[in-house]
């Protein structure tokens, strides 16, 4: 009972404080918008590749596209075009097979699954054109048998790459500051001493603080995902419940680190410096905005074990690459392990009273 009341109170405190509202919710959106403006790709011309071919089908196909505005048909060798597809220069690639007499012609279509908006449009166009040829020219029910193959390219669309990073970063900052800052403030103001007089267990009191941050983290993730989908054409391929589990573990991990920071920080002012000293380098090293392939090996090794790296990478796999939870078990286990380390250390360092009220101050 105390737990739920504390959880409710903590959530209310976070949501009623203007500055924490800004940092939890507006700040991540500002990031998204700025990055979107800088790197987001506008919807330009659609490029459709066609493997050069002299067949009747190919000629009809080519003729049909001459009449469609805004679409450029590029012909070439299959290998070259596949490379161009992977490089993002063309959106879909069509290859006509040789049809036997009386049988439909096989048509292969390759597309980049990470560029779903553009390729989706291109695929519909291709389907429409094929239907049109079938009905208008040959007057048979099925001329082409379309087989579509998704190609996973190395490079994600930048906003899709960025979105899980923005979630990871926001959860990190909010959970670190959202636990450490109030806890140290409450200690300085003597609220913790008052709480200490009640029979509530330390684990329940601190647990409610950490779990409170998962509530905020869910709200953040939801807002960021909705914004990404609505304004930046980000495609969410994975399951949301799986992503929710990742966010939950990530928020608990960061909140535990926040509790640890509260134990180390003697005063409110030191929370800022300690938390920022931890969060800022981690934000850049953990692949939030860009991969750090170019960094020296030792730095990459450091980056690989960071708490935020596991959170970002699990979110990216699940949300954008559409992986099952099974695929990110190592990341999840790493997050659980970090949480455990942070909680044990935080419990060891936790103090109900500021150093100044604990001993030296004997004043009445």
């Amino acid at each position, binding site marked *: *009972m105390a737990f739920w*009341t504390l959880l409710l109170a903590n959530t209310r405190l976070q949501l009623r404080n203007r500055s924490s509202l800004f940092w939890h919710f507006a700040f991540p959106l500002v990031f998204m918008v700025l990055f979107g403006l800088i790197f987001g790709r506008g919807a330009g011309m659609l490029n459709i590749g066609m493997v050069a071919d002299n067949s009747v089908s190919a000629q009809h196909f080519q003729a049909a596209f001459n009449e469609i505005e805004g679409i450029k048909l590029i012909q070439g060798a299959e290998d070259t075009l596949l490379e161009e597809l992977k490089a993002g220069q063309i959106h879909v690639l069509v290859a006509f097979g040789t049809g036997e007499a009386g049988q439909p012609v096989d048509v292969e279509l390759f597309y980049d699954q990470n560029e779903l908006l553009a390729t989706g449009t291109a695929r519909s166009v291709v389907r429409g054109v094929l239907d049109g040829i079938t009905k208008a020219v040959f007057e048979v029910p099925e001329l082409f048998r379309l087989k579509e193959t998704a190609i996973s390219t190395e490079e994600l669309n930048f906003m899709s790459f960025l979105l899980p990073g923005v979630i990871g970063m926001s959860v990190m900052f909010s959970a670190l500051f959202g636990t450490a800052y109030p806890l140290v403030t409450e200690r300085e*103001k*003597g609220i913790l001493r008052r709480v*200490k*007089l009640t*029979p509530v267990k330390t684990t329940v009191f601190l647990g409610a603080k950490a779990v409170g941050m998962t509530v905020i983290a869910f709200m953040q993730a939801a807002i960021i995902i909705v914004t990404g989908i609505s304004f930046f054409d980000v495609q969410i391929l994975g399951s949301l419940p799986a992503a929710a589990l990742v966010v939950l573990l990530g928020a608990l991990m960061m909140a535990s680190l926040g509790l640890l920071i509260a134990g180390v920080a003697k005063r409110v002012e030191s929370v800022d410096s300690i938390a920022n000293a931890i969060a800022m380098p981690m934000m850049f090293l953990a692949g939030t905005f860009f991969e750090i392939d170019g960094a020296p090996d030792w730095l990459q090794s450091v980056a690989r074990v960071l708490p935020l790296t596991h959170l970002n990478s699990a979110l990216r796999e699940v949300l954008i690459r559409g992986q099952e939870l099974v695929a990110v078990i190592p990341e999840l286990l790493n997050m659980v392990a970090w949480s455990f380390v942070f909680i044990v250390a935080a419990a060891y360092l936790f103090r109900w009273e500021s150093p100044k009220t604990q001993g030296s101050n004997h004043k*009445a």
Partner: protein
Amino acid sequence: MSIIVDVQELTKRYGSLLAVNKVSFAIEKGEIFGFLGPNGAGKTTCLEMMEGLRKPDGGKVLLKGFSVWPDPRKVKNLIGVQLQSTSFYEELTVKEILVLFASLYGRRLSAQQLASLLEMAGLAEKRNAYTNTLSGGQKQRLAIITALVNEPEIIFLDEPTTGLDPQARRRSWEIIQELQGKGKTIILTTHYMEEAENLCERVAIIDQGKIVAIDQPQKLIDQLGQKAKISFASSRPLESVFLAQLGAEAGQVNAGDGQVVFASDPAQTIGMLLEKAKQDGIVINNLHVSSPSLDDVFLGLTGKELRD
């Protein structure tokens, strides 16, 4: 009446400083007991050792027969505490604070309990106000009723009226008296003489970690006997030798800029004083003769004024 609070040789040291020095006293059930002393006298330290917040270096605290130390958990449900510097979660409402603290005791406040607490503190209209919008007096009263959510038998109030205007102070006194009427035992600290005289049945005067006197306020005043209090200011400091001559029975203490002398024969003492002043060309101002109060008891016992 039965003893509900029993403190024996309670001691706390901070380094070389003896903050509380073998303090012993007992309080009866239903009593309002006051600790009176200047800042730094050891009042709060003493109270916090009784509440289980500070571990004593020696001695015992028994609340209703339970020893607070080494395990204060046993008395947590028995006591209610208002700490000296009261602050709350600023973005919670009065009602939310009460519900939260009740839940920390594993209790759920009924609508009736909530209403009666709010009414007692005069905060019924403020129930949905954020605590940072409350006045100083309202905050102090909220702190007092927050100490009541677990229906404690013993209530500790550390400077419940410090910094309040006289009207707000009287409002708090009413609450404390109402609690006494409900059979609660109340232990408070104060550095307001008026508060101790008006509210407390017994006071312990504490100075430098020691209880220097403990009794009913009026009895403490009576101990000064029939002496009159003569206070005055002089244009130049008077020689201590002369002040000692002012009367064999007169006790002399420095009180800030002024001088205070207790005399059994005020007329004679004043005569001597004025004659001496005339001889030495000293101007005497603000000469007052009055009957002593608890303030003077304190001054007489400790040589200090209560307020800085």
